[in-house]
């Protein structure tokens, strides 16, 4: 006998659209409101919803903390890496103009990569923070602590 069957089903139905929406915000950020940071938060909140409904153990199975930590470092590393790519292609640090033959296309590539790095870092950081807090829930609150 499952409790909250409706909620479980609703959450299951909601999570894929949220992830899809996060990707839309990520890649449509150049044209409308949005960008890496917002997309990262929405992406993470989909996982947080999953964790809320199905429990922390299940969330850990899907997104283990060690992997999340590495992703966090990788996201920021990607941003810095794009910066170094600017130096390597003969421009200044974070200069995207030479990432492609045409400066404007280069800017597009640079902004795309940078936003991707931000999105990765933010999503994984939020998830890591949530997992850290959730992992500590070991004590029962009594009624009069309310």
């Amino acid at each position, binding site marked *: 006998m*499952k*409790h909250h069957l409706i909620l*479980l089903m609703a959450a299951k139905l909601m999570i894929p659209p*949220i992830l899809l*929406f996060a990707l839309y915000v990520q890649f449509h950020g150049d044209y409308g*409101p949005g960008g890496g940071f917002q997309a990262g938060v929405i992406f993470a909140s989909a996982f947080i*919803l999953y964790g809320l409904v199905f429990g*922390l153990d299940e969330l850990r199975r899907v997104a283990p903390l060690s992997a999340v930590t590495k992703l966090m470092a990788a996201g920021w590393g990607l941003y810095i890496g794009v910066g170094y790519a600017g130096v390597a292609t003969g421009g200044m640090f974070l200069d995207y103009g030479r990432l492609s033959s045409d400066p404007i296309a280069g800017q597009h590539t640079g902004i795309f990569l940078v936003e991707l790095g931000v999105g990765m870092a933010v999503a994984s950081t939020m998830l890591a923070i949530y997992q850290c807090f959730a992992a500590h829930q070991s004590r029962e609150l009594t009624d009069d602590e*309310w």
Partner: protein
Amino acid sequence: MLAAGVISVLGAMVLALVRLFLGPSTYDRVLAVNMFGTKVILLIAIFGFLTGRPDFLDIALAYAMINFISTIAILKFAGYYKITEPMTRPPASSTIPARRPG
């Protein structure tokens, strides 16, 4: 027409806030917060049309999702006192403790 919509939504928001402040029980407040969130979404949608930039519906969409998630978080917290338990199990106590005046 749209302006009238904005005004009525604002009125509804004020009413929701009143319930939020007074709300004797937690349920009242949760409902009020959720309704307040819904009204904000509506407000943004109408406002987008009012200023001629309907492409901002994106934001309203995002709000709807966030509002859903935070309401679930609040409710889960109210029912279980903690956020790790999977919701496939029954809550720790089946009733939300009565609000004390505060």
